[in-house]
């Protein structure tokens, strides 16, 4: 785990656990809700859940959190970029798009969140929009038929907005 960890509000986690019935079978739902709040799973939150809930341990919660790709152990950016590298997107040229994003945001050596915390990047296996390949999603917005030039324009626009 890298980067600084967010301070966790444990009363909020208690609330999430209670809302999910406090059952260990609802662990995934609980982790999803926690991730919604913090945009990732802070380590303290996982330790707290593993200690507090019957039948779980911090190591078990960590196991679930690292098993599923949907959970992130590092803080995600304000803009979550999901670059599809499924079969259709891959053959239609998703790799140049991915490389263009990495170059534009200076993400290298396995780093996937920018230093200013604005962007985070991950590759996903399918977004269910193969007809629009190659596809990139930024937060909830879908960007179809991307090219390396087009994605640069998209990113520049966001950066301009942010720097205003």
């Amino acid at each position, binding site marked *: *785990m890298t980067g600084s960890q967010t301070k*966790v509000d*444990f009363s909020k986690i208690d609330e999430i656990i209670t809302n999910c019935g406090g059952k260990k079978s609802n662990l995934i739902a609980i982790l999803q809700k926690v991730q919604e709040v913090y945009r990732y799973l802070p*380590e*303290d939150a*996982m*330790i*707290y859940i*593993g*200690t507090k809930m019957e039948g*779980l*341990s*911090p*190591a*078990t919660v*960590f*196991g679930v959190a*690292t*098993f599923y790709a949907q959970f992130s152990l590092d803080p995600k950016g304000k803009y979550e970029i999901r670059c599809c590298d499924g079969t259709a997107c891959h053959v239609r040229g998703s790799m140049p798009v991915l490389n263009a994003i990495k170059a534009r945001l200076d993400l290298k050596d396995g780093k996937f969140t920018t230093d200013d915390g604005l962007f985070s990047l991950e590759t996903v296996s399918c977004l269910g929009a193969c007809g629009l390949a190659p596809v990139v999603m930024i937060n909830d917005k879908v960007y179809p038929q991307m090219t390396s030039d087009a994605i640069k324009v998209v990113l520049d626009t966001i950066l301009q907005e942010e720097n205003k």
Partner: protein
Amino acid sequence: MSEDKKTLFIEGKEVEFTDEPNLLEVIRKAGMNVPTFCYRPDLTQFGACRMCVVEVEYPNGRVMVNSSCTMPPEAGIKVKINSQRVRKIRKTVLELLLTNHDRECTTCNKSGNCELQKYSEEYGVRKIKYPTLTKEEMMEIDDRNPSIVRDPNKCILCGACVRACSEFQGHSVLGFANRGSRTVVQPMNGRDLAAVDCVFCGQCQAVCPTGALTIKSNVDEVWDEINNKEKKVVVQIAPSVRVALGEMFGLKPGENTIGKIYAALRKIGFDLVFDTNFSADLTITEEATEFVDRVTNNGVLPMFTSCCPAWIRYMETQHPDMLAHLSSCKSPQGMLSPVLKELLPKYQEGYTKDNIVVVSIMPCTAKKYEAKRGQLRRDGKFETDYVLTTQEFGRMIKEAGIDFKSLEDEKADSPFGGYTGAGTIFGASGGVAEAAARTAYYYITGENVTNNDIKEFRGVDKNSRSKTIELDIKGKKVVVRVVSTLKQAEKAIQEIKDGTANFQLLEVMACPGGCINGGGQPRSCDDIKIKEERAEGLYEEDRKLELRRSHENPDIVRIYKEDLEKPGSHKAHELLHTTYTDMRTGSYKDLK
């Protein structure tokens, strides 16, 4: 379950079966075997390693390959356990496992005891087709605790340790992390075992088929001390070791080899040989006194036994608010060491407080941790200098070239070597409580109990590992709860918290069945019967001994007369009792 006889065929032989949980057990009962890494009869079936695959032909002619550990036995099936087809599968499994395995076998802690090594040899794996683990890809070894070494490069992901930690101790310190080829077994987020709540019971390494989890050895340090002419190296040996060590030399489980053990210890070069059974008797006189005192003077009840270091660490890390329930008595190991260092110079010439080195031989990995507890120091030095497990002791005997089986029986040294049957049975779950009951009866009534065999304490039901015994001490009712495994201990604690607990004494041993099944004992994870046989070995010695009540041990009578005044005296407290600390505060679970 139907009473009808059901049969199936294994390698053409008709075999009866009844309620065996899986085909593998049927195969084993028929006197045959298939290799496995992940199947452990005491744990849930997992089906991870695929080594136990067999070829099954159904009555309708359909042939399938299935893992025998997860397959329920069916009437009429024909099972081939060693066909060419399954042998090929097993060999491929081995090759794939070895691809990701650090194969420095000769220097591995598990060498000679490793199931991966054994089957690779049996199946003649000589070449690995695939690119193997490079030095750069190797992960860090965690040996930063006194008890257990975790080497992730030797892990084959069979999950036995994860199940042991969860199913025995309810604790799940170890868990799987990540997915696919990146999967590892580790404590929370890759921390050291010492940095999480691991209690060092060693049950994880007792079920580990490879060198991924092993006992941290102190053999070399002990040899150095023995060869140091300035030092007087004295040794104590725990109850359970005597009924298990023989297994490493081809003797039957449960065979009591204590006479040979004393002889072997002298041959190895220890200066004086003592028996932890003596201090088990001492523990009983102190603990029974403390218990009677708590009962009569409205002390904190239920009282918890304090012999098991894994249990102590569990209490300190999980329930620091309940430490007052723990008996303040040190464990037998913890009692004998300061007695030897303080009192031995009085009885033996040439021995001083500073030149005595105490080595203890224990069935337990957590005892190594106990010896390093800050509370068990005297004049800045640890009271117990080194702890060796049964396995390490067996290795020393082999290294010294001693023919163990042919040794003539010898006796322990005096004055701290004599023991009663009550001290012996300390090694089995229920034994401490039974021994305490014999002496408490005397302390309360002034008379000896008519029948020393309080059989209600004995035996462990695999499914509950917990029992409640009501004693009638001349009209006074005392309820005792006996549990092994921390999972069961936790249930008892919850009863206390809920206010439903009806017992006054709680005996806890962290290993299933007690110390006879400790993490340091010779490997026995494949056979449930071995533990019963070891326990029976202890009860047999108890039956044979003339003295069976701790307070009647003449060495105990003398130590109080000469040195400690009486049980529970100030001097006794100074040497034999200890304190506990809250280890939750400041731990990784102490979130702010």
